[in-house]
């Protein structure tokens, strides 16, 4: 087993290379397939622009016979011109790399969004396993990302987080839940971030809401002569940050309490489509066939809302 990586051309860093790597100026991984030492390896790069994402790419090999996640940890720290440590604006300062068996390796691109005023970036690689030997080829020198965009299918087959997220943003704008789910499944498989899992839950929940009428028709007795005009939502506007069913359940609860025994009329205004959904979720009938402000509802388009309202019609 041990010889496999060497047979594949991997060489260990020399003593001289190991010592000089502490200066963070030498990018020894560029010079072919190298066995990753136990000690972390770091290389300092100059950040030319904080606008464009920085990237680096690696091919990681293991002497094991299956792909394994998280065996190499890549972290970037940013510094100002004078060496002050800067915090990244988003949590994109580290990546867990997969190691692939020999003959099945694919390059893994990692992306970083530097904070403003970043002048230096120190990228550090660290081996996370002692069970298997790891060899790596690539460059720790961070460069600006200028690759040609990938198609959706290409992105889905890749481990390119930047392209996967770019497509995810597009699918969010287009409210394309099918594409978003595929992208999120891939992203979750690769990195399992809480934000991605929550987004997938939110989309999955929206589809469940559309599939099943939320509540049986409301049988409350309308004894009040004055109608209740439902002008604005009780809840803060729904932003798609958590499952819609929870927002609707809470909004419907408050609506029922506020309306008492009055007949409810919904009118155009703030978050009108959400109010229409909540009214129906609470089991009340709509006073109009129009749908207002469908664009305000994350991941739902006008036809989805029309479908829901029709499906839960008394």
């Amino acid at each position, binding site marked *: 087993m041990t010889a496999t990586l060497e047979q594949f051309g991997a060489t260990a860093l020399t003593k001289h290379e190991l010592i000089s790597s502490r200066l963070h100026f030498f990018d020894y991984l560029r010079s072919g397939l190298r066995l990753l030492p136990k000690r972390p390896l770091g290389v300092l790069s100059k950040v030319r622009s904080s606008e464009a994402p920085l990237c680096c790419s690696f091919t990681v090999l293991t002497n094991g016979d*299956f792909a*394994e*996640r998280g065996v190499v940890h890549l972290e970037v720290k940013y510094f100002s011109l004078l060496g002050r440590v800067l915090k990244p604006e988003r949590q994109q300062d580290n990546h867990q790399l997969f190691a692939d068996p020999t003959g099945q390796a694919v390059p893994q691109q990692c992306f970083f969004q530097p904070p403003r005023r970043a002048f230096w970036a120190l990228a550090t690689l660290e081996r996370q396993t002692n069970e298997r030997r790891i060899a790596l080829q690539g460059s720790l020198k961070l460069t600006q990302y200028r690759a040609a965009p990938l198609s959706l299918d290409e992105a889905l087959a890749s481990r390119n987080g930047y392209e996967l997220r770019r497509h995810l943003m597009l699918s969010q704008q287009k409210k394309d839940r099918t594409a978003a*789910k595929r992208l999120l499944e891939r992203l979750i*498989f690769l990195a*399992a971030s809480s934000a991605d*899992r929550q987004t*997938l*839950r939110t*989309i999955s929940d929206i589809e469940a809401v559309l599939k099943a009428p939320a509540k049986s028709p409301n049988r409350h007795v309308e004894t009040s002569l004055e109608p209740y005009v439902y002008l604005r939502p009780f809840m803060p506007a729904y932003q798609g940050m958590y499952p819609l069913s929870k927002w609707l359940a809470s909004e419907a609860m408050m609506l029922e309490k506020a309306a008492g025994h009055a007949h409810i009329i919904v009118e155009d205004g703030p978050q009108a489509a959400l109010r229409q959904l909540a009214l129906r979720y609470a089991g009340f009938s709509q006073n109009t066939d129009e749908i207002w402000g469908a664009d305000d509802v994350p991941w739902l388009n006008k036809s989805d809302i029309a479908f829901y309202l029709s499906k839960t019609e008394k």
Partner: protein
Amino acid sequence: MPYSQEDEQIRIRSFEEVCVDGKLALHARGTPDDDARILAYYPKAHGNPFQDMLYSKGFDNGFACFPVGAPETSMPVLTSPLLYMHYHWIHRVFATANTAHEAKLASQRFLVAIDRQKSAGAQIIWTVHNIVSHESRFPDEEIALRAALGKKADHIHIMNPATRELCARYYDLDSHKTFIVSHPSYAGVYSNYISREQARLNLGIGAEEKVLLLFGSLGPRKGARLFLAELDNIEAIIGDRMRVLIAGTPGDAQYMEEIYALAASKPWVTMITKHIDDHSVQFLFQAADVSLCPYDIGLNSGVAATAATFGCVSVVPDSLVPTMAGAEAGVIGFNPTRRDTLVTATVRALEAAGNPDTKNALASWSEAHRPAAISAVFFDSLRQRS
């Protein structure tokens, strides 16, 4: 006492010294010297309180119990007190083996050590936890080892009344050597003061949601892969979305990749891939409606006993149901060779979970199987046999 300190204390003392410490402790406890017993056990299970529960009434019954760090522990020839060597999860003998040949050699070394221990006057006890271990890397070698240990052991502790029949396909267990003492419940072992509502709030689970829990270390024979493949069928029958909690120590990387891939498309599956500490166990079982043990093979289940302790219904292989006699209303069996039965058993378990009689049956079982009571029975049985 934290494990690290306990380990340290075990490691720095010789086996003989711990025996002397045990003898002195029993004497100080008032145990007549002729009645004193020393019981060494291997391997110490970290993160699983089973052994501490089983031995919890040791001193009350004249037994001083302690773990040893290696299966090949050489023992001094002691005339007094009487010495027992108790083996549990014997696949650990293969821990350092990388090939079947190395496993065979490890097995031979282990059996030679047992002969030496017997020559030194020790009686050998073996608790048969599984037919073959869930994590078995060398099943053929492990079965051979089990067959050999079955012959050499003086006492074989079983927890499932059908153990002999279930193991007979692989190896024989002498009926004269076996004695049955049930698996204890975890009453008083795990913290249990959190309400169901609080547990669900912490885990982000609504009051109306149905929650299935897969608890325990993850491995190919623990059935998580099969369960995730069947989840859509369960949801189709229930007609509702399930919340699934998978919590436990991750298994080998290749297997975990498959689990991660299956779970990635199921946003209502929450994976907590780490050891769950004793305090946190209550959150999972309080939040759950049903605990699933979709094992390929099994004799006993600490997970089902844990579930019963928290009043949670469990789904187990049919062969495990007899281990929970008296709690059958809350222990639903399925046939591991017919995977569709897992779906129907889960549906039945969800129905049973809503029945107050089920909770009562589980509570009665848990109370009757408190660790102290089971421990007393275990030592009493051992005394009667030797």
